[in-house]
């Protein structure tokens, strides 16, 4: 039987405001599954034209699939969000690229024709589930020196990346980080951030360090407006004595969730769902685990090659800022300036936060907005580094571009 791959489009994406992990964070006592449920319900609310029984899959990522992030979250979240029982779901884990992998996985299903419409997203409550919770690394990793011992500590892998590229100085990282905060503050002031946010009721018990009673999360908690390069220079380097990686030039520990609607282009048009971006290509690549931040470079090379594009064809970038150095490594590789306006126009994870498995969809949602503001741009990409030495890149086409579909 001959098969035709279908075009896959990004319809819409939302996220919760991101919070600071820990007992004083706004989500300290809010369940992770509730965060993703609010996102799913918001997408349904925003799209009354979407018949929920046609949702073919709910893929939800979480790095630590324990407790309220376990129990096959994609399925339980679908049920708890009130989607029909006929809608299946599953869980995904590729650490930081969880939500990105959720999107590419369901995109594969859509392209193959097994699913018409899917929800893809991710959640990470790093307060309730600190990195490394419950892990049990195989002793062979040490015994056979399969992986450098620094590979499991993400901050150390960022220091290692500084070692590999001596031209990526601490000063450049700090300058990039300060700019990220500034770009975010400007975007926030211009009303760019709020439209994607789903308000979340937060309940704290009487003993809560974050203040008792119900509240409402309507804004990101991590950003530090007014951050200066001078201020960043003074921060401690927790991963290495006289190191270069600080809390200021990397993303923090955060709580948050994202979700998106992915659909076959013909189905989206039939139902009147917005077509915000068309999937061009995607790729994941592996590198040495101890320089995990290098991952986006081979991933992007592969994704470009698959699409038959070069870096010059890409007009907008949404790069995950797990660490400033990891963004700079990619920019340097392609000869793009540190302050190129095509890159992270609204700032990045250094300001907004990076609740691991949720971030991929945030990048895509923001890229979709940039496409609407830049009809002249035909292609954009999202890219992120992934723990244990990986990178992931997805290239999208702008439906507003005059040559779209030609």
């Amino acid at each position: 039987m001959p098969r035709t791959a279908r075009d896959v489009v990004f319809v819409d994406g939302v996220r919760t405001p991101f919070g600071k992990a820990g007992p004083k964070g706004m989500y300290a006592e809010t369940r992770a599954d509730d965060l993703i449920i609010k996102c799913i319900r918001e997408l349904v609310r925003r799209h009354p034209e979407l018949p929920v029984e046609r949702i073919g899959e709910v893929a939800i990522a979480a790095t630590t699939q324990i407790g309220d992030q376990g129990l096959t979250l994609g399925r339980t979240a679908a049920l708890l969000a009130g989607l029909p029982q006929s809608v299946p779901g599953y869980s995904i884990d590729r650490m930081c690229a969880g939500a990105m992998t959720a999107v590419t996985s369901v995109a594969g299903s859509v392209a193959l024709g097994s699913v018409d419409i899917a929800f893809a997203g991710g959640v990470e409550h790093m307060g309730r589930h600190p990195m490394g919770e419950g892990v049990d690394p195989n002793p062979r990793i040490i015994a056979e020196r399969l992986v450098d011992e620094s590979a499991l500590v993400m901050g150390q892998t960022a220091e290692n990346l500084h070692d590999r590229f001596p031209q990526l100085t601490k000063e450049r990282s700090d300058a990039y980080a300060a700019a990220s905060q500034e770009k975010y503050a400007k975007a926030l002031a211009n009303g760019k951030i709020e439209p994607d946010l789903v308000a979340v009721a937060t309940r704290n018990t009487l003993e809560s360090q974050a203040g008792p009673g119900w509240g409402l999360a309507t804004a990101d908690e991590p950003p530090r407006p007014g951050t200066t390069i001078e201020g960043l220079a003074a921060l401690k380097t927790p991963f290495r004595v006289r190191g270069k990686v600080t809390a200021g030039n990397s993303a923090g520990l955060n709580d948050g969730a994202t979700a998106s609607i992915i659909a076959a282009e013909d189905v989206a048009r039939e139902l009147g769902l917005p077509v915000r971006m068309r999937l061009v290509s995607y790729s994941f690549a592996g590198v040495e685990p101890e320089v995990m931040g290098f991952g986006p470079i081979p991933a992007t090379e592969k994704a470009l090659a698959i699409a038959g594009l070069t870096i010059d064809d890409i007009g907008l970038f949404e790069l995950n800022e797990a660490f400033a150095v990891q963004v700079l490594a990619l920019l340097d590789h392609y000869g793009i300036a540190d302050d190129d306006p095509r890159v992270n126009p609204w700032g990045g994870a250094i300001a907004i936060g990076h609740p691991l498995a949720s971030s991929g969809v945030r990048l895509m949602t923001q890229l979709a907005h940039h496409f609407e503001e830049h009809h002249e741009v035909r292609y954009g990409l999202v890219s992120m580094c992934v723990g244990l030495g990986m990178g992931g890149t997805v290239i999208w086409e702008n439906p507003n571009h005059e040559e779209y579909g030609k």
Partner: protein
Amino acid sequence: MTDRQSLIEQATAAFPEEVVTHAPVHLLDLPGGAGRFALITLDNGFDHTKPTTFGPRGLVNIDVALDEVAKLAEDGEIVAAGVTGKPFIFAVGADLKGIAGAASKEIAKATGKQGHDTFRRLGELSVPTFAFINGAAMGGGVEIALHCTYRTVSAGLPALSLPEVFLGLIPGWGGTQLLPRLIGPDNAVTVVLDNPLSQNRQLKGKKVFELGIADAIFEAADFLEESLGWAAAVIKGELVVERKEYPEAEWTAALERGKQIADSRVHGATPAPYLALDLIGSARTASRSEGFDAEDEALADRIMSEEVRSGVYSFNLVQKRAKRPVGAPDRSLARPVTKVGVVGAGLMASQLATLFVQRLAVPVVLTDIDQERVDKGVKYVHEQLDLLALKGRLNSDKLNRLKALVSGSLTKDVFADADFVIEAVFEELSIKQQVFAELEAVVRPDCVIATNTSSLSVTEMASKMEHPERVVGFHFFNPVAVLPLLEVVRAEQTDDPSLATAFAVAKTLKKNAVLVKDAPAFVVNRILTRFLGVINEVLDEGTPIEVADRALDPLGLPMSPFELLELVGPAIGLHVSETLHAAFPDRFAVSENIKKLVAAGKRGIYQWVDGVRVVDPELEALFEVGDSPSTAEQVLDRATTALAEEIDLMLREGVVAAAEDIDLCMILGAGWPFHLGGITPYLDRTGVAEKVAGRRFLDKGVASLP
């Protein structure tokens, strides 16, 4: 501050065991730039298994929160304020322990006034207020919401009610004044009177919205987010909530309906519904302060009434004692029940089989003497299960499962692997003994053998058995599916594991089990028979039927003696009275006229002619009566005297562990009202107990004023 400090100290002293509700204020930004909002969360620091209540210190905490909110409002820092609850609970009203403990009318009145003074601030701030009813809301919990300008309700709300009248109180924190104006007098009568007097019926979220108590309804999954979004839209003027005015004629009609409801349920026996009705009526024209003052006065009177003390006592019996039967052996001794046998396939046996299969979901086998009866019994169970499925209580898979579990047999060997066998055959000792002998020949030695006898001695039934220790009495009340009481009878030789198994089965059947001694007719039937025997006696003596039957009306019982006789069936009533007469010939008579009634095949004293109930005209010829009629007062006096005497004897015999169990049995098994406290609080407070038994049944203060 000093004022408040001393208030808190007084409150603490008056009610030291209060579970204190806190009221933290959280400032948040409404979506869509609608402004800042001060949200108060009512939270007692426990999870949903201990619902939030209002006591004096909790009210002070709310007052302090409202000071903060009022200042924010005056300073222009907030655009609105709101109240919500901890997860699954909004607030369930005044702490009953606090109410029942009020030592004087002055204190009781202060309780009412403190609630009013605190809650009314929510309706008198300079900004609009919202109640987000996220979970269970009762009494004062509903009233605090009514004081707000607007309300939203969760579609997942399991229960909302104003249960005050059910307990003999009145809604005293604004309920009678605010509710009728909000939802109209007729709906208010439903919520304030009809629901509490209908087994304290609860409203679910959808109904709360339909009645107009809430202005908007949102699904539970994101109830608070959506509610705050709705509040933002109201504040921005994007949504306007219309309020209706209700014409005088509607008030008049509603009050008339309320009067009929009160008359038909309590026959004037307790003043609460009538007072509540008066207050609702006054709400049409009274100012807020006038209305609230009237509530304070009425509530204080009620709190200081015997009916309310009995009502709260009854409520606690049903809520607490019924769930932890006194004297039941340790539940760890219970053996698992994986198959049930029912001896007999008649109506009672079939009802039992239905209940067992429905609740235990284990194989249930019915036996009887011929195939036709067996088939009829199994068919009855299947039909009952079909009915449950039709009502949506069983899905088709569950229906298939349960039907497949029910079978019939002509021989008792099918009971060989049963863990629990109950007999419901003809009420005659020799037949029961024979059934037990047959059972013992096939069942395992540890199989519990139960009897549904209503009056025979369980000990005698078991006396010829090899293992009498596994025999228990398991006395249900008709209709089995409806009445919650189960008298679990410990015979002389019953051992703890068998009894524990019986209690465990009762719990799974969702029945409230009360442990009783093996004494003639146990509790409910003995008391009813003694009590109603007086009515038969005065009938035989020549008291007119109507006088005899209406004489007990002042008690507010759910039905009159002859209505009950008709429900039970004269033949069964006669049988029980004969059994009791055999046991206690000097106290239990057998009425010659009731014998005649049974012999004539009559189903009762009354018949219906053109929709009107009249005394059966043939009775005049049938009955032979004396010439010494009694007045209604004399009948009531004799009946209550008999009651007190019988209860005193039962307690001395140790039929139950305490007077509380008598009351619990009468409330759950006979539907006797809360305002009587079952019965012993009534006998105490009227002095009948003292006069007849020379003592109170309950210490002063337990179910009465201190």
